[in-house]
């Protein structure tokens, strides 16, 4: 088994790089779109508010795999032909934007009303108030659920192998077909995924703890 693992390790590493690229790109898209959604959702324009709520409800209810197929096949049929990589990024980004915008909203809501009043009473502009008072506190509240979401995102990137993106799951699948040792190969892939899971949850948990400690 170890020999097989050794043989396929380079392929797996290449797959890990692709998985991380998908994760990174989808994360950027999700955070940007999520910020737009939360701005619309908490803003003054009624139509935008409803649109944001509708988007969040709908995207949270559709399974990610369906979104991946829609981004790849359905968009392709109507003339928007995305390569598999970008179709995956768009699908994951669109889905996680809905989740992130909800986490951002509860982060913002966790900041006490009095903070806003205190900043206004000092004559700060709305921009300065957001930047220096509200967002730093909202960010702290956003981090734990945001971290949790990131570790789900990494796991969900495994779905892009279904549209031919050569990620970690794709490599594991190829290797298991080639060697007829699927357990060995999927366990190896599992070790990689699990390592990321542990890494993210432990490192960020410690970091959050540090931040909390410094402020108390």
């Amino acid at each position, binding site marked *: 088994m170890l020999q097989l693992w050794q043989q396929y390790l380079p392929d797996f590493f290449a797959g890990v790089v692709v998985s991380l690229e998908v994760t990174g790109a989808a994360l950027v898209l999700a955070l940007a779109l999520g910020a737009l959604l939360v701005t619309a959702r908490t803003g003054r324009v009624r139509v935008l508010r409803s649109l944001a709520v509708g988007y969040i409800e709908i995207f949270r*209810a559709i399974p990610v795999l369906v979104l991946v197929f829609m981004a790849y096949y359905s968009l392709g049929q109507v003339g928007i032909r995305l390569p598999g990589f970008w179709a995956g990024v768009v699908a994951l980004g669109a889905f996680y934007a809905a989740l992130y915008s909800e986490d951002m909203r509860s982060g913002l809501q966790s900041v006490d009303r009095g903070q806003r009043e205190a900043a206004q009473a000092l004559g700060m502009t709305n921009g300065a108030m957001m930047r220096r008072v509200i967002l730093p506190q909202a960010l702290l509240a956003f981090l734990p659920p945001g971290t949790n979401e990131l570790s789900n995102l990494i796991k969900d990137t495994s779905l892009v192998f279904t549209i031919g993106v050569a990620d970690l799951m794709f490599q594991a699948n190829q290797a298991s077909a080639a060697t007829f040792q699927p357990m060995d190969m*999927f366990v190896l892939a599992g070790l990689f995924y699990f390592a990321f899971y542990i890494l993210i949850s432990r490192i960020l948990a410690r970091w959050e703890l540090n931040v909390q400690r410094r402020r108390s």
Partner: protein
Amino acid sequence: MHYVALYWAVMARGGALDLEMTAIAVAISVVVGVLAAIGKLYGGKLLAAIITGYVEVIRGLPPILQLFIIYFGLSQFQINLSPFAAGLLWLILYGIGYAVEIFRAGIAAVAEGQGEAADALGMTRAQGLRRVILPQAWVIMLPSLMTFLVLQVKNTTLLYLVGVADIMYQARLGTSATEQPAIMYGMAAVAYLVINLTLSRLGGVLERRVEASR
């Protein structure tokens, strides 16, 4: 549009299979989940460590990988499960991992004050759990349980990858036959949307009922 007319019946059949598998899996994982949560809270260090490890593995591995390990991986040891059996087994194992945490959190939240009160009345731990803590914990956990239900419905989409004839499977077949992916996956999306939004609404109604009856 005639594609929709042509395929909605098969899609519905796929949806029925999804719901059936979800229902069986959720029922079993809830029962096992409650027991495991109690085990984790009151069963000693070793049992707690084993359950924690199990939960971490379920949470740490991509769902699709777990499914493939059960369906393809086990075949390496001549354990050949049918797609339905493998899919159901995975949904149950995965569900247990989530249910344990939901119940542990729910029980712990109630037990903090109420457990002492039950102890003070001279109840045994089992009595306290059954008569005092669990009845209250259900109410607290209702939102998480609804989220869990929706999550499991969404997870059934993966089952087509091992050959279960669910909604996705039908959409996939339909796409090969008609070359209309926009319509086929659109129908699948709508099907899941209807199922999941209905479940969320029902959950909301249920929560309000329970809140009101308290």
